[in-house]
């Protein structure tokens, strides 16, 4: 039980107390940073083991559900918590040798960002979700501007304007939900939301779709993402692209499925909305990525495209689609993390951001280039890799639900991405006459991406182990009555088709 709350409190406390560590115990600083990341990771794994069979509820201040704030953790929350803690741990290890200045503020903000994301996936209270949502967003704005360059301030400002408008829309939606149901507890809302008139529900749905959609960059609202993710420091780009946008997507799905039953969503044609906005997002992301000449910008556009894949899977509103989507979320977080980290190494080495300037860098950075190549082929979705499995699951689910165009666009999109990633890979391995630079890249910097890329192996070879866990997620996300039953302490869950 105590694991749930300590998962939020540990990084929060670490963020608050890092100033003291930095000032008085500077010797133990590295140990403290890594230790916090490791403890968070272990706690999250412990939590996942607990909730994989019995979702748990933790009442803060021991108030009854609905009176106080509760944390409600179901398998999906557990999986995402482990994903967040794991990627964050790798990012922390990478940052230790990447970030050289303003370390104090950097780690303070990074810990609080981890706490904010974990709070978002663990909380069972609508307004608490908003508070953590704002914590996560504000830190994202700040860390985007961390480099203190002109363009990073500009990107941060753009992100901030769009982000604050989306925050306002979500707050309005929450006020409307509270006023029409009288509760803020997510599980109680499952029952209470049935009384909201459909007209009002539609307005709330529009507000949260725009609000959260702007945050995970669904296509008409994606303009901030390439700027923000490409100007941020590389570890932050990896974290933003890898997990932060997925957490916002999780928040949308959680609230949406609680407000509407699946039948209502299908009657309102939300599945078409999701799937086809996913298709548009996918193509926009891929086609714009094709035209980029800066490496990190290309990766950022590729992230938009991957959000498109995930949206297609989610929009099917069935278990198979969701499983594929969740598996793709995990794969993309891992792979895009590696890609951004290696891109950071390239940029550190060559001091240039354009792809053309990276020509022949593979001869100086053989390991990083190899990892980059593997990861690029992985994210394209070529057969032996793990992304292929999740894309295959998505394709299969889309075909089964008679969405022919989205299914074929998954294939076409992968072909487009293959073309632009191949362009980079051939550049990396093409021969050049002179040495590029003599800048030394610290060896430890390559450890973190190497470690993360080693996880392709289990993800690709033993997908069934993970899928077994993932299979439990739709049970609580789609059949929200199960989510409500967590409150009652039930042990019997209603199957998806039962």
């Amino acid at each position: 039980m105590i694991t749930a709350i300590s998962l939020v409190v540990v990084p929060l406390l670490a963020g608050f107390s890092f100033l003291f560590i930095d000032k008085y115990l500077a010797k133990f600083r590295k140990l403290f940073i890594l230790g916090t990341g490791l403890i968070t990771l272990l706690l999250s794994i412990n939590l996942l083991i607990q909730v994989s069979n019995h979702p748990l509820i933790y009442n803060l201040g021991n108030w009854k559900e609905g009176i106080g704030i509760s944390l409600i953790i179901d398998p999906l929350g557990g999986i995402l918590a482990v994903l967040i803690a794991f990627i964050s741990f790798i990012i922390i290890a990478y940052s230790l040798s990447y970030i050289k200045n303003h370390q104090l503020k950097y780690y303070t903000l990074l810990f609080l960002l981890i706490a904010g994301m974990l709070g978002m996936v663990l909380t069972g209270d609508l307004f608490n979700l908003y508070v953590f949502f704002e914590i996560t967003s504000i830190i994202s704005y700040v860390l985007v501007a961390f480099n203190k360059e002109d363009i990073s301030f500009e990107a941060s400002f753009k992100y901030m304007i769009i982000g604050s408008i989306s925050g306002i829309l979500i707050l309005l939606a929450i006020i409307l939900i509270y006023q029409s149901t009288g509760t803020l507890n997510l599980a109680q809302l499952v029952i209470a939301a049935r009384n909201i008139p459909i007209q009002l529900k539609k307005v709330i749905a529009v507000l949260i779709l725009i609000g959260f959609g702007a945050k995970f960059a669904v296509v008409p609202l994606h303009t901030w993402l390439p700027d923000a993710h490409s100007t941020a420091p590389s570890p932050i780009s990896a974290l933003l692209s890898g997990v932060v946008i997925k957490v916002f997507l999780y928040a949308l799905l959680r609230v949406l499925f609680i407000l509407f039953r699946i039948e209502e969503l299908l009657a309102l044609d939300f599945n078409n909305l999701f799937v086809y906005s996913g298709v548009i997002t996918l193509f926009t992301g891929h086609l714009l990525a094709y035209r980029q000449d800066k490496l990190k910008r290309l990766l950022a556009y590729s992230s938009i495209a991957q959000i498109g894949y995930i949206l297609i899977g989610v929009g099917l509103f069935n278990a198979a689609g969701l499983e594929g989507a969740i598996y793709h979320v995990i794969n993309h977080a891992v792979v895009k993390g590696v890609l951004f980290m290696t891109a950071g190494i390239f940029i550190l080495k060559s001091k240039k951001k354009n792809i053309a300037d990276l020509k022949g860098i593979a001869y100086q950075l053989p390991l990083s280039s190899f990892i980059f190549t593997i990861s690029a082929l992985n994210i394209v979705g070529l057969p032996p890799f793990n992304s292929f499995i999740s894309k295959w699951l998505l394709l299969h689910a889309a075909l089964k639900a008679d969405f022919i165009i989205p299914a074929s666009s998954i294939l076409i999109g992968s072909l487009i991405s293959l073309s632009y990633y191949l362009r980079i890979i051939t550049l990396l391995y093409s021969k050049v006459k002179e040495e590029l630079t003599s800048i030394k890249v610290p060896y430890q910097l390559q450890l973190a991406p190497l470690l993360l890329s080693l996880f392709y192996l289990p993800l690709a070879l033993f997908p069934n182990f993970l899928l077994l866990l993932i299979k439990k997620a739709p049970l609580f996300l789609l059949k929200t009555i199960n989510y409500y039953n967590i409150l009652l302490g039930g042990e019997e869950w209603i199957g998806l088709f039962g």
Partner: protein
Amino acid sequence: MQFIYLVVIILFCLGLYTILMNTNLIKIIIGINIMDSSLVLLLVALSYKPAGTAPIIDKPYSVIVDPIPQALALTAIVIGASITALMLLLTIKLHRNYNTLDISEIRRLRG
């Protein structure tokens, strides 16, 4: 429909109009603040009950207004103020770098 909800709607739309129509950074920030304030007003208005007293129970009152929206309003104000402070800082930075507050001249990032 009470008058105050019309005020909320007008303020909300006015804020959005300010954001969309202006190219001045400061005015955009003001627009976001107006939208934020309209929601705070909405929260306070929703908690109101006719002839209700403030939720401080020093003696038994018959009608007491809903205390939850007021607590939520405080949170919304704090978050709004923090974002405003950050946006103002970035505005200062942008003004120093580009020597203008016009967003159409600042935009170097495209695509």
